[in-house]
């Protein structure tokens, strides 16, 4: 960041389109968008209104449905952003104005003063220890306190202190300033003022996220009045190991573990009284996650979830919900609840709810969690206004049909919850998609504003005797207060190979770094040990120092004497000093054995093979081809279009066929896209950047060889053929797609139809397909509304288990109900029954179903029945997965590398997926996913070479017995046996350097670079040598 001397300045000026992108909002979607844009060759300004990046995801404990620790998966992305030279993080800033047009915007930002110099602050945290003012810790949802000068949360990026001027004694009353002299780096600066920044960018990605609904708007929940009523986000902090109670599940009133917790769903969602008619799309699942996690904390805990429809519609959600439901002591109760009172003695909360339709029950709980909805707030509205982009009635970003990422203004894209309530994988998907749209727009400016660091030519140190330099950081007082740093330096000096050892105050400060570079050169050091904080955040900083000093970056070794020593042994100075000495000795000993390492680079074939010519496959083809990539698009059917050929309109009334025909035309006209229909992959080999495939084309079966750098799987899904409810026996029983066709081509058939019955979940959420097909509830509503339009007097019944019209689709559910469509809930153990009956010379389809409120059997004589049949994966997924060596999930959909943060990637580099090959989804979701997959593919294809990891495995062929243990152990398929020579060979392009094969090799034939057996043994020996 530039210095704070000026109040206004202009960053970057160029003519015409600008090769830079601004991302507004640095939650998980903003972060992902920033990374993808930067990897696509553009400069990025990542802007957040808060003092650190991370957004709401950083506050979550775990994520559904895998229970992955949220911070574990998110914080590596913080570091990726902060170390990327082409991403500038601008915090505490909001937009003031925008001028210009797509390709060339000037955005004016207002940045609040931090009162701490970002250049000088090292994040040591000493100031906070002296600050006398305690304020509410917003990261912990005000359940804890922190100091007025503070680092927002332990993993915060930037890890820089910030002062809250609304509570600072100096800012308010010109007294105190205690913090100022405690900072050894003189970083605290009360002279800072708000400043204006004018930034030129070609495109803007808007990702400001959401605000949780404030339950104080509805007095019936007693929120803030009753101590043991908390919001779901507060409960996340309570559950979190880094939360206000250190991960102890206790309640706020008395710090005691609750025995009985109730969750109230739909607080501020699907509620006309607060004007939030939409469904917040994530609450059912996060509540289910919280139930599962709470049960992990205390297996005897009783959990009651008071809910409306349970919307477990995403990949893996239904199984997760079933798992929670089956846990002992967990009750899901379909009921709206209200809070009656608080018991004055115990402060327990009494809830009242209705069961079985009529019976009212009161029940007491130790703790009540309000599952609050996701709202777009005033700030988002203001932001949209400033940017002149349209929002919908709910205050979320409006987008053109079939292009969810675009906004109403060209050059501005949106992603994440600002578009609509959605979960993390959908946000991340949209973020990558947004990056690809920005990248397309600015295609010709790619690479114009990015900087690559230039380093001096590396000095060859092989053969030199080790000359180790040890730099011991005292981190202001963070280390020095506990660890006797001079003693550690003295100890280091006496170690074998050490020629230089010195104490540094803030080794990571700009001055110290410059000095270190000089010292390395001056003293001809060829190994460097930094004894400071954690290598997880600071290794890149010091690797950079080595490169500046003409050394290979892998000649660096860290000793963590801060997080692992001084901060955790504060009362034991002597022991801590001894430990610090040991840690330094371990690192020096390992450093003696360090060798320069190099990343192996590979050429990239700038072409993509896309398997599947439905909407997803075509959209990703176009994204790539528009940016100059050669695409081979293969489709097994005679024509492009996939399943979408059978659907005429979306729920929102948009014409799918128009969209599809435009897409097909553009694909066919694009000279870079080679389409092969009636074509299948018959052979597949190679690795990222260098795949070779054989495809079999047409009836003649012509074999064609294709060389490609990436592969995208977009093989789609199908509607299943029901095996029940007289389907196939009686022509009046049809599936949703059959009905679509009738609506489109044969409206006359409704002439004699007076009663129509839809049956939901036919073939979904059962033993055969224990997943939800996601789209059928909305599909049925769409067709019901259409029928009502064609013939308003028709009686329509929808028999359902849970109506899963998540997000804004809820409005159509309500519309259908308002138009008289009758919804009857049925239980999976008491499914509807259909009989053909003859009455007064007319053949009728008699549907019998139990009405849940009255508990009585209801008979409906229907003229037509529509079955919401399951969406199923094509049978050929199996053979394709084996050929590509990529996994399927238990339902035979393709399985991504990580359910939350890598939703379109396979674990194998260079292979991606999109559309319904991943799981059932809507067209707009498929489009976003296709754009995301193309974005990921593109970031690989634009590289001149792909670099592998440096610390990879290497086989010593002399010792290799060819036993193949390593081959079986490697999760990346990076090792294979070379058949003729009988030895294992590592593909360095695929190796991630985990070292699992090294540990597994019975002959010790594999060398794990940077973590070699010799190096690890040296560390062990040194650790115990005191």
């Amino acid at each position, binding site marked *: 960041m530039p210095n704070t001397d000026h109040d206004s300045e202009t960053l970057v000026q160029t003519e015409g389109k600008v090769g830079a992108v601004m991302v507004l909002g640095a939650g998980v979607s903003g972060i992902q968008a920033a990374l993808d844009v930067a990897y696509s060759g553009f400069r990025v300004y990542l802007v957040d209104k808060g003092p650190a990046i991370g957004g709401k995801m950083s506050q979550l*404990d775990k994520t559904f449905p*895998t*229970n*992955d*620790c*949220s*911070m*574990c998966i998110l*914080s*590596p992305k913080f570091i990726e952003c902060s170390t990327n030279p082409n991403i500038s993080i601008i915090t505490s800033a909001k937009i003031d104005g925008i001028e210009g047009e797509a390709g060339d915007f000037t955005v004016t930002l207002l940045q609040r003063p931090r009162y701490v110099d970002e250049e000088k602050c090292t994040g040591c945290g000493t100031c906070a220890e002296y600050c006398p003012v305690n304020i509410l810790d917003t990261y912990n949802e005000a359940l804890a306190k922190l100091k007025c000068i503070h680092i927002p949360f*332990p*993993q915060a990026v930037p890890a820089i202190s910030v002062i809250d001027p609304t509570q600072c004694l100096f800012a308010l009353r010109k007294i105190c300033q205690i913090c100022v002299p405690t900072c050894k780096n003189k970083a605290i600066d009360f002279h800072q003022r708000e400043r204006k920044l004018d930034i030129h960018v070609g495109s803007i990605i808007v990702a400001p996220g959401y605000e949780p609904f404030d339950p104080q708007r509805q007095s019936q929940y007693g929120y803030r009045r009753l101590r043991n009523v908390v919001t779901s986000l507060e409960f996340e902090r309570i559950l*979190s*190991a*880094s939360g206000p109670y*250190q*991960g102890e599940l206790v309640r706020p009133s008395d710090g005691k573990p609750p025995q009985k917790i109730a969750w109230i769903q739909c607080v501020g969602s699907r509620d006309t009284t607060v004007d939030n008619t939409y469904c917040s799309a994530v609450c059912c699942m996060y509540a289910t996650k919280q139930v599962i996690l709470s049960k992990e904390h205390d297996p005897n805990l009783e959990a009651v979830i008071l809910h409306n429809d349970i919307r477990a519609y995403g990949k893996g959600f239904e199984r997760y919900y079933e798992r929670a439901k089956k846990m002992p002591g967990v009750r899901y109760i379909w009921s709206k609840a209200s809070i009656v009172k608080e018991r004055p003695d115990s402060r327990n909360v009494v809830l009242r709810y209705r069961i079985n339709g009529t019976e009212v029950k009161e029940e007491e709980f130790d703790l009540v969690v309000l599952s609050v909805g996701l709202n777009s707030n005033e700030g988002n509205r203001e932001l949209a206004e400033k940017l002149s982009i349209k929002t919908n009635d709910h205050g979320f970003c409006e987008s053109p049909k079939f292009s969810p990422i675009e906004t109403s203004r060209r050059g501005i894209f949106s992603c994440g919850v600002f578009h609509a309530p959605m979960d993390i994988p959908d946000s991340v998907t949209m973020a990558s998609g947004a990056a690809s749209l920005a990248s397309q727009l600015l295609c010709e400016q790619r690479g114009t504003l990015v900087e690559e660091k230039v380093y001096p030519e590396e000095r060859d140190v092989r053969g030199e005797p080790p000359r180790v330099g040890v730099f011991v950081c005292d981190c202001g007082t963070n280390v020095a207060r506990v660890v006797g740093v001079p003693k550690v330096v003295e100890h280091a000096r006496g170690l074998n190979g050490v020629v230089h050892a010195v104490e540094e105050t803030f080794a990571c400060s700009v001055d110290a770094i410059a000095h270190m570079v000089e010292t390395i050169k001056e003293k001809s050091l060829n190994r460097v040990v930094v004894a400071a904080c*954690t290598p*997880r955040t600071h290794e890149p900083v010091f690797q950079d120092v080595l490169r500046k000093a003409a050394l290979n970056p892998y000649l660096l070794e860290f000793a*963590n004497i*801060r*997080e*692992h*020593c001084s*901060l*955790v*042994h*504060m*009362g*034991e100075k002597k*022991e*801590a000093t*001894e*430990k610090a000495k*040991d*840690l330094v000795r*371990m690192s020096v000993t390992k450093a003696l054995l360090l060798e320069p390492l190099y990343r192996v680079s590979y050429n990239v074939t700038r072409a993509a093979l896309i398997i599947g010519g439905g909407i997803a496959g075509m959209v990703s083809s176009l994204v790539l081809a528009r940016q100059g990539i050669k695409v081979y698009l293969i489709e097994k059917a005679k024509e492009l279009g996939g399943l979408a050929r059978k659907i005429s309109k979306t729920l929102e009334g948009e014409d799918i066929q128009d969209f599809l025909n435009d897409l097909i035309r553009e694909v066919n006209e694009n000279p870079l896209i080679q389409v092969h229909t009636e074509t299948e992959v018959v052979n597949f080999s190679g690795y990222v950047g260098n795949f070779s495939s054989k495809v079999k084309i047409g009836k003649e079966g012509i074999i064609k060889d294709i060389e490609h750098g990436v592969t995208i799987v977009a093989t789609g899904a199908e509607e299943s053929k029901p095996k029940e409810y007289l389907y196939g026996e009686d022509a009046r029983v049809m599936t949703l797609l059959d009905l679509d066709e009738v609506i489109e081509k044969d409206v006359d058939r409704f002439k004699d139809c007076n009663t129509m019955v839809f049956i939901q979940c036919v073939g979904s959420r059962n033993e055969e397909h224990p997943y939800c097909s996601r789209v059928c509830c909305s599909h049925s509503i769409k067709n019901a509304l259409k029928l009502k339009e064609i013939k308003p007097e028709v009686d329509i019944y929808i028999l359902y288990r849970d109506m899963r019209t998540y997000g804004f689709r809820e409005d159509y559910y309500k519309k259908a109900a308002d138009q008289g469509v009758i919804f009857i809930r049925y239980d999976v153990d008491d499914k509807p029954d259909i009989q053909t009956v003859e009455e007064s010379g007319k053949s009728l389809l008699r549907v019998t179903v139990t009405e849940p409120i009255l508990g009585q059997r209801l008979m409906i004589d229907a003229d037509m029945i529509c079955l919401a049949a399951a969406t199923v994966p094509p049978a050929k997924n199996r053979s394709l997965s084996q050929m590509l060596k990529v996994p399927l999930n238990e339902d035979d959909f393709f399985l991504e590398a990580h359910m939350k943060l890598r939703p379109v990637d396979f*674990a194998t580099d260079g292979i991606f997926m999109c559309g319904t090959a991943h799981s059932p989804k809507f067209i707009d979701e498929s489009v976003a996913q296709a754009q995301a997959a193309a974005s990921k593919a593109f970031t690989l294809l634009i590289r001149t070479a792909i670099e592998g990891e440096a*610390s990879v495995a290497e086989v010593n062929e002399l010792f290799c017995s060819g036993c193949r243990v390593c081959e079986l*152990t490697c*999760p*990346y398929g990076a090792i294979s046996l070379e058949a003729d020579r009988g030895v294992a060979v590592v593909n360095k392009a695929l190796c*991630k*350097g*985990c*070292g*699992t094969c*090294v*540990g*597994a090799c019975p002959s010790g034939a594999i060398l*794990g670079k940077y*973590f070699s*057996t010799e190096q*690890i*043994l040296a*560390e*062990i*020996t040194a*650790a*115990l040598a005191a």
Partner: protein
Amino acid sequence: MTRFEPKIVVFLCNWCSYAGADLAGTSRIQYAPNARAIRLMCSGRVEPYFILEALHKGADGVLVLGCHPGECHYLEGNYRTVGRMALLKKVLSQFGIEKERVRLDWVSASEGARFATIVNEMTETIRTLGPFEEKDA
């Protein structure tokens, strides 16, 4: 008499348990100063030999901490560790070495307190067992 202070070698994976130990630090959670950590990329890198060597070189106990099952950064490295440790423990008991001297456990990046607890527990366990002495084969 001075209290026996065990020496414990800890193997940490870069992604979860090392980050958990870092969080213990930034959260200032205090724990016993007896452990010396060696960072690896994955707990799957830990060879049984390292553990035997640590004991041989003077460690009284060895901790191997990885990502929780299913959360391995390298997909399944920690499952390999589980298998190896089970086998190693069998070998240890055949050599008459208390199996409590070697402990495999899981610490996520958000479990600073858990990391501290495990180190404290291990320190106490080994303190009760007393120093490790190699018996003649």
